[in-house]
């Protein structure tokens, strides 16, 4: 009987438990330097990519709104949080809990909030467009952000914004990544998320059921962009510089690739693709050209053949959209 109880406990809390174990393993590896800082760095970039993928998945995979402007929102979060930590708060790594971590997270949140506000007003205007037109409009927004960044000399302009304190460590990254995953997956598995699915399925039918499609899309966009900006902020405090060229629509396509490979609308897929597609290029370092070709090939194959369908069918949790908590 005891074993059944344990089993039930595990079944109910499999996600928190596995995440907890994973976290412990990662922190152990980090603390005792079992793996090189390089691998840790790659994993941390992977964590940021997980959040980016998840947040775009909410917009594109779950709600069906095709955005090519995700990197633009990432840039907003990155630059604002970096400006706050570097110029306003003068944070230094290892400056204690309050003056370090709390202010750092505060800066991240401010950046993300600004991005969310921008997303709100942009969404009010452009979410009336559908499909390809929305894609172009978001792409246009992305390029406008890049032009604006290039023209702002107080944050470096085309020189880039340097000397950002290295505040992202494994702890904060894991903490924020975990919060993002929980937030987005729980959002998806609520009435809000179902409304998003309805919009993806058939917008007119959804409207006829009293679902305000603009509002639902707006919510998804705002939340998605909030987390994109959060991830942008975390990434920028990891690599310690922000540069306009990092945030062109090419980056948006890269995030989209992760969404597609992980599976549209799949949370577990986003986590796997976010980390996997960060690690893969590092493994492929020995052959630069091969990697450049492999990436688009992956995109094409995954979109047309869906090779992970088998896996996704086996691991029913992979396709979380139809799954459930």
């Amino acid at each position, binding site marked *: 009987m005891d074993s059944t109880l344990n089993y039930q406990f*595990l*079944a109910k809390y*499999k*996600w928190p438990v*596995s995440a907890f*174990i*994973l976290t412990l*393993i990662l922190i152990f590896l980090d603390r005792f330097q*079992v*793996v*090189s*800082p*390089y*691998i840790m*760095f*790659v*994993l941390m*970039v992977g964590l940021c990519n997980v959040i980016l993928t998840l947040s775009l998945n909410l917009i594109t995979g779950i709600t069906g709104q095709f955005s090519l402007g995700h990197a633009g929102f990432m840039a907003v979060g990155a630059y604002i949080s970096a400006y706050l930590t570097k110029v306003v708060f003068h944070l230094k790594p290892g400056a204690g809990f309050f003056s370090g971590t709390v202010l750092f997270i505060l800066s991240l949140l401010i950046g993300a909030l600004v991005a969310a506000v921008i997303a709100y007003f942009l969404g009010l205007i452009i979410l009336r467009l559908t499909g390809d037109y929305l894609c172009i409009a978001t792409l246009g927004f992305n390029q406008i952000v*890049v*032009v604006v960044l*290039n*023209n702002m000399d107080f944050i470096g*302009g*085309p*020189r*880039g914004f*340097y*000397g950002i304190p*290295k505040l992202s460590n494994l702890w904060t990254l894991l903490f924020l990544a975990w919060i993002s995953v929980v937030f987005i997956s729980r959002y998806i598995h609520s009435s809000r998320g179902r409304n998003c699915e309805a919009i993806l399925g058939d917008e007119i039918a959804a409207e006829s059921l009293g679902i305000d499609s603009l509002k639902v899309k707006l919510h998804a966009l705002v939340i998605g962009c909030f987390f994109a900006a959060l991830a942008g902020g975390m*990434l920028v405090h990891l*690599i*310690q*510089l922000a*540069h*306009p*060229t*990092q945030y062109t629509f090419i980056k948006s396509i890269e995030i989209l690739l992760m969404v597609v490979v992980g599976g549209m609308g799949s949370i*577990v897929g986003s986590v*796997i693709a976010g*980390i*996997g597609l960060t*690690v893969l*290029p*590092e*493994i492929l*370092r020995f052959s*630069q*050209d091969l990697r*450049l070709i492999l990436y688009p090939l992956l995109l094409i194959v995954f979109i047309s053949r869906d090779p992970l369908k088998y896996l996704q069918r*086996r*691991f*029913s*949790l*992979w396709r979380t959209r139809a799954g459930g908590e």
Partner: protein
Amino acid sequence: MKGKRVFMFFAVSLMIIFAAGATWASNDVIKIGNIACLTGPLSTYGESHRNGVELAVEQANMNGGVLGKQIRLLNEDDQGDPVTGASAALKLIGQDNVLAIIGPIPSTIGMAVSSIVEDAGVPTVVTGTNPAITPDKHFVSRSCWTDDFQGVVMGRFCINELSAKTAAVLYDLGNDYAKSVAEVFIKTFEAEGGTVITVQTHPSQAVDFRAQLSIIKSKKPDVFFFSDFYNDANLIARQAKDLGIEAVFVGSDGWDSPELDLASLDGAYYCSHFSKEDPRTETRFFVDEYKKKYNAEPDLLAIMGYDAALMVIDGIRSAGKEDREAVADAIAKTNGLKAAQGDITLDENGDPTTLPAAILVVKDGKINYMKSYQPIQ
């Protein structure tokens, strides 16, 4: 249970990651890392840079290596992207355990890499010209003069040698190199008594500059300064010529390339880190050896990479041991090193303040050496 399977999947993939990253030590060679943009839009620079570095390493190895060991060069690609550059640096440091690093070239990546190597305590010689890379960094130095210097040199040259009163400036808005050189040029030109009548910009990857050039033409400047890389400069010069701009074209070291369009740039002046006609023995030796090995003319990235490798090798030699800290100290004390560009002595920032700038003039399809500007103290 499905959760268990997913968990297993995670565990296995993590294990694969770590297995892929297993380190191995080997003590019979000295490992030096080289980060360059071997792919991406700046890859020609990256290839020249790598060629230069490889030439220096090969020469050192032929002469018995350093500290009795051969040098092994590990090339990493940054793709012209700072994040990739940062992870390349971390890989070289953490995984390959290199003694020192050479590169990267573009200043954006230079900035990303320099803070990482400073934290990790790995001596690094960059080949980017952005002044902001080296200050306050003990482990970071560079093998060439900075953008500040060439902006001043060209500004003064236009006033003093070309007797220019007015100038027009065009630069790539998305290129920090072009922008910072142009800004210093504008400042110097105005400080020396000239007037900059118009400043135009263009977005990166633009091919049509006629709109900006038509404006410049209408202002009739004495000199027209555009600090773009050679490939943009070619197009700009060509279109400026077609439009009939009569000003003297002036540029910066980004022009220095065998690919420069000499016909369109006839009569133009630019500055570089060396001249192929320089009679110095070290320069001649480098140019000859480079031609012999690669069957191509060296460009400035080749010579900067070559000299960076010389600085690192010299540093290891004078440190006398395979210790990153000691090598960094030795490189920082580099004094009068006979390098291909000139004698290198580093200042407190780690910048060579002794290297001259060569002014070159394009004439009848040839690039001629005009004069050298010694550093301004």
